[in-house]
């Protein structure tokens, strides 16, 4: 058929009922992607048809014949961006970038249709686009900026505040280094790397939440022409490992093989088929015959911990170190069908009783603390299982290059991925190369190795390129999610509102496997208890196995739930004491100089250490937030059924894991005096590569375009533990800074030889010159000198960032809600997030991270929920039914603000920013609902129905 694409008539091939998106992808229009398998929700497939927006997945190619098809490719290219694309880049909205081209197209269409569009019209134009990374606010700013520039091309005012007058790049709004490529829809993601002739991998998944495979017959599938491999528990490597991408030795157990005889959740791996194409693979999947012995599933924390509950992981247990003495007795009646569990060290597990991990600790004397109290309250808070929902689902392309497995991955942890795949395949790490491509959203879920192991094994076994991409339903059944938790908080205080005792008990549900089973629930305590000063504190964490879909890392890593429980309990205590909750917090919160003793007991699987707060923006964040929201003033709606209330929360996180994380980088001076930086870090869209380039350019006194970066390629870049635990800027950025400093020393030494002056008398000047007393040399001169036949060799610097110091980011979130007491609906009218991330290195990108984190948690608190039927199947596995927030859900007045502090240990004073943003919305909204309607919402999500139940309008 003939299609007119971007003004050009093209002869294209299409199957009769093929949708336009498929055809456009095949024709090389990469900007037209898909995030939800034709759900018509996420908008990554947006094109214009006769000038009007359309989802290319919902249009048959045949229906587009004779119509003008416009894709984002028509707007501009990386060397020449359109006004809208440039405005998006300048507004910091191009982060993970998976559907940035679609956004550019929608804004372009709007500004063409409606010059002078209002905010409402911008929201309406973008209503068909899901963005998880940046919370939409900057899309609105980008549209407004583009609009202003279309009227006045010289318009340059940036909406973003800048920091650090003494620095050139750090603290300034600069183009994100990959933004041009992403906004124009260039080759960037794993799906763009798949070579012609590659195979696809499809997974047969368990229909049962808990079952043994009693028989599996793959004969017919294997006999199908075009099928190259079928992998099951019978022929996969007999090697145990864990899927959590954590530093070795991991606190998470090795409790699975690639395929297991026992199935532990609906969607668990039964068999993988590697075939010529999707149709053959799907056919082969249907030919696999499986018999199951179905077991009773355990779904909830209470069911799992009930004495006599069926064991989810009942296999033989071994320890690499620290095995208990009675281990033989413990293992005596283990059923071999259950497999095995290997612990690197004890984590308080008792898997036969479904306890995956447990830990407890205290400072002071908790009972004495409660005895001192005039008022004691104890409350329980329940959080639900929620999804990361990255726009780009989990995806991998693995192939063989000579004797090496090369994995194009969308991963936050390239080096852990290499280690785990090497282990799973039984080969050494030098035979595995991981290339991290651009990541279309991860939010923690791409810290786990969910599909790379199978694809790598398939490529290794067949010698073919193997492409494996999760469907959206796979995401809902086999992706890591937030652990459901029950957290009880007991507080004691004097009548003056001084805390005397704080106790936290966490019960968490890890699901079928123990990824992060110790560390995520511990984080619920370690990121909330240290917010207050109290001499007597204790905590207890018990994580159980169950048959819900897997859990794991999710932005905030346990902290959003701990923070919800802790901050809501403090608000409840304030009400009990007849005190303003903000006043109660002010009387008890930590300050600069506070010593956080409780952290002694909260090391992640090793001994912890008390830490001192060395930079803290809480004073300012709380003060500014209170002023912005007019704290203490009661608002009226004028309608007796609409009640207005206010709430707040103070929040904290960490900046990487001191003593555990390590990041390395090297930087080379090239022949013309420009630089090539190799960073082990994994930029998952947040702008880490830009941070690294900024740091290097700042140290070396050059413009950012003089520094190129390659990151997260295990054959090229040095080691890095990866992008998790809020470590990117602090650790990976820190490594880039150290590497540049090392190189700077070498540059000075070389210049000293060239100029005949001691290095101590030389000065590095912008742009790229070394000035001596009498003369100077440029970087070009130095490069030529060092790389000549008599030179000392290419100059290179190396940096390895490790630290024992903790740099905690802090923040305060304030909100105002309107509760309709007749319908139970809750509208967030105002939301102000004030955050101290030390030096905001990329202020625009930091704001985007804050907006994104807040909106995710507004979603978790009000809308999102994975619902299950009795068999343990998720019954709402689509983005719409699950309830992700869209731009039409934005708070009416939504502001993020950066509170500057200069951290003594962070690179250029920086701390982390992204994860902490998830910690405030839940408690702030819960408190505001109480302020409005007098009911406490102690269970996620606070749906209209739950609000009505709390109000007693419908039965519980």
């Amino acid at each position, binding site marked *: 058929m003939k299609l007119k694409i971007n003004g050009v008539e093209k002869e294209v091939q299409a199957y009769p009922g093929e949708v336009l998106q498929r055809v456009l992808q095949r024709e090389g229009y990469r900007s037209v992607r898909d995030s939800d398998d034709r759900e*018509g929700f996420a908008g990554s497939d947006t094109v214009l048809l006769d000038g009007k927006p359309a989802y290319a997945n*919902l249009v048959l190619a045949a229906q587009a014949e004779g119509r003008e098809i416009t894709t984002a490719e028509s707007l501009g290219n990386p060397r020449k961006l359109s006004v809208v694309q440039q405005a998006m880049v300048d507004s910091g909205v191009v982060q993970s970038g998976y559907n940035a081209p679609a956004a550019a197209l929608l804004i372009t269409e709007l500004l063409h249709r409606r010059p002078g569009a209002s905010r409402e019209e911008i929201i309406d134009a973008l209503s*068909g686009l899901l963005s998880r990374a940046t919370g939409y606010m900057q899309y609105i700013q980008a549209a407004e900026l583009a609009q202003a520039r279309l009227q006045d091309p010289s318009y340059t005012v940036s909406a973003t505040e800048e920091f650090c007058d003494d620095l050139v790049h750090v603290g300034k709004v600069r183009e994100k280094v990959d933004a041009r490529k992403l906004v124009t829809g260039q080759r960037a993601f794993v799906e763009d790397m798949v070579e012609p002739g590659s195979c696809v991998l499809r997974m047969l998944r368990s229909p049962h939440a808990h079952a043994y495979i009693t028989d599996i017959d793959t004969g017919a599938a294997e006999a199908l022409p075009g099928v190259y491999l079928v992998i099951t528990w019978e022929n996969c490597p007999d090697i145990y490992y864990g899927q959590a991408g954590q530093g070795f030795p991991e606190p998470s157990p090795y409790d699975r093989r690639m395929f297991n005889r026992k199935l532990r959740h609906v969607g668990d791996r039964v068999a993988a088929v590697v075939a010529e194409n999707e149709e053959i693979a799907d056919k082969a999947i249907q030919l696999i015959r499986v018999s199951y012995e179905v077991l009773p599933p355990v779904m909830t924390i209470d069911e799992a911990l009930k004495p006599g509950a069926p064991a989810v992981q009942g296999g033989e247990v071994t320890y690499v170190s620290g095995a208990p003495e009675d281990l033989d007795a413990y293992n005596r009646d283990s059923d071999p069908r259950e497999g095995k569990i290997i612990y690197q060290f004890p984590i308080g597990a008792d898997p036969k009783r479904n306890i995956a991990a447990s830990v407890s600790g205290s400072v002071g004397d908790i009972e004495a603390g409660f005895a001192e109290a005039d008022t004691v309250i104890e409350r329980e808070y329940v959080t639900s299982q929620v999804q990361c929902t990255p726009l780009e689902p989990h995806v991998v392309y693995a192939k063989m290059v000579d004797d090496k497995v090369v994995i194009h991955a969308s991963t936050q942890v390239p080096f852990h991925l290499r280690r785990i795949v090497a282990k799973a395949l039984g080969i050494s790490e030098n035979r595995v190369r991981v290339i991290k491509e651009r990541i279309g959203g991860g939010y923690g879920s791409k810290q786990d190795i969910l599909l790379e192991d199978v694809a790598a094994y398939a490529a290794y076994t067949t010698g073919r390129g193997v492409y494996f991409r999760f469907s*959206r339903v796979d995401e809902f059944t086999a992706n890591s999610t937030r652990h459901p938790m029950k957290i009880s908080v007991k507080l004691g205080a004097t009548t003056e509102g001084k805390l005397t005792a704080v106790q936290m008990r966490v019960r968490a549900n890890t699901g079928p496997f123990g990824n992060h089973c110790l560390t995520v629930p511990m984080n619920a305590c370690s990121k909330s208890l240290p917010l207050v000063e109290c001499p007597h504190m204790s905590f207890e964490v018990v994580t159980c196995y169950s048959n819900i879909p897997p859990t794991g890392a999710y932005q905030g890593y346990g902290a959003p739930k701990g923070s919800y429980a802790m901050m809501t309990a403090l608000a409840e205590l304030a009400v009990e004491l007849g005190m303003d909750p903000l006043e109660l917090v002010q009387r008890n919160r930590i300050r600069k100089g506070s010593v956080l003793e409780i952290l002694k007991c909260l090391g992640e699987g090793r001994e912890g250490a008390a830490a001192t707060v060395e930079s803290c923006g809480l004073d300012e964040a709380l003060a500014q937030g209170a002023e912005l929201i007019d704290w203490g003033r009661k608002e009226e709606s004028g309608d007796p059924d609409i009640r207005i209330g206010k709430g707040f929360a103070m929040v904290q996180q960490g900046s990487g894991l001191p003593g555990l994380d390590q990041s390395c980088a090297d930087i080379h001076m090239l022949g013309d005096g420009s630089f090539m930086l190799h960073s082990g870090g994994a930029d998952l869209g947040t702008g880490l590569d830009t941070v690294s380039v900024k740091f290097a350019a700042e140290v070396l006194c050059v413009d950012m375009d003089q520094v190129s970066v390659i990151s997260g390629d295990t054959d090229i870049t040095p080691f890095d533990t990866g992008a998790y635990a809020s470590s990117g800027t602090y650790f990976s950025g820190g490594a880039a800074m150290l590497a540049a400093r090392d190189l700077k020393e070498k540059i000075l030494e070389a210049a000293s030889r060239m100029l005949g002056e001691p290095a101590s008398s030389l000065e590095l000047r912008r742009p790229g010159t070394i000035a001596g007393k009498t003369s100077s040399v440029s970087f070009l001169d130095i490069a030529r000198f060092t790389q000549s036949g008599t030179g000392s060799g290419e100059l290179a610097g190396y940096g390895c960032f490790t630290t024992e110091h903790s740099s905690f980011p802090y923040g305060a979130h304030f909100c105002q809600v309107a509760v309709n007491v007749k319908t139970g609906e809750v509208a967030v009218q105002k939301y102000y997030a004030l955050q101290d991330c030390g030096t905001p290195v990329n202020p625009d990108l930091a704001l985007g991270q804050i907006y994104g984190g807040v909106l995710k948690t507004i979603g978790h608190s009000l809308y999102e929920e994975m619902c299950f039927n009795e068999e343990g199947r998720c019954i709402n596995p689509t983005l719409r039914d699950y309830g992700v927030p869209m731009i039409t859900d934005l708070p009416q007045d939504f502001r993020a603000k950066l509170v500057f502090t200069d951290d003594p240990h962070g690179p250029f004073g920086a701390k982390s920013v992204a994860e902490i943003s998830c910690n405030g919305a839940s408690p702030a909204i819960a408190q505001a609902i109480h302020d409005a309607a007098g009911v406490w919402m102690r269970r996620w999500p606070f749906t*209209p129905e739950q609000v*009505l139940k709390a109000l007693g309008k419908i039965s519980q």
Partner: protein
Amino acid sequence: MIREIIPVSSLEDALDAIHDGTCLIAGGTEVNRLGSPRENDAVIPIDRLLPREIIREGRRLTIGAGCTLQDLCDSTEAPVVIRSAAKRAASRTLRTMATVGGNIASRRDDSYLNAVLTSYGAILTVLKTEGARRVEIEEYLLHPQGIILEATVSDVTMPAAFRRISRSSQGPCALVCAVGYDLAAQRWRAAASATSLGTQRLFWVEALLQEPQIPEAEAITRAAGGEWSPAPDVAGSREYKQYLLGVCIRECAEEIRRTGS
């Protein structure tokens, strides 16, 4: 994936081509979407053959079935309630694709348009083998047959109101309900859309509304217990939906009384 495309040059030919395993396609947003029951059908494209005008003659409004939901939102001829019901359907991108005829014919459990058009007493013009026929919308929803050509509202000045309750702006809704007051006949009309029930005209609610006083929400909820029983789903329990029906019907009726619009 759609199996085949059956090109036709007239709506009459399209009608002839409808058999088991074939279906019409207009905007395609329902037929092509994930999980569509039409996944393996052969499709008959009619998007370029359907009327696309929105015409106002006096109080009468005629909406061509080929209009998109966005055309309807943008039309100054259509009453605000109908425009805002069309606007509630998902996103602008979807609305610029989805047609009015396709939305009515999809008979979705969450159709705002069907509930509102029912409350207006809309009449559909439907092409059948025996020719174009006028059918009440609630009749069509019960027995869908033929190709919808247009929907007619005889009195756009009729006061009406509608409510939609869901957790998030584009998430699944627990309830859509609409109420209208036929000034000429001095009769209330009420309709609701909900899971497992689709869009229904609620005669029992209309009877309650005919009383001199607008019934209390609790009275409607109580009556719903025996009359209207939507299935529980991710959007909420049955009890919650029945409660909401009481609250929302009363609110709509009060709004109509208050504003007379």
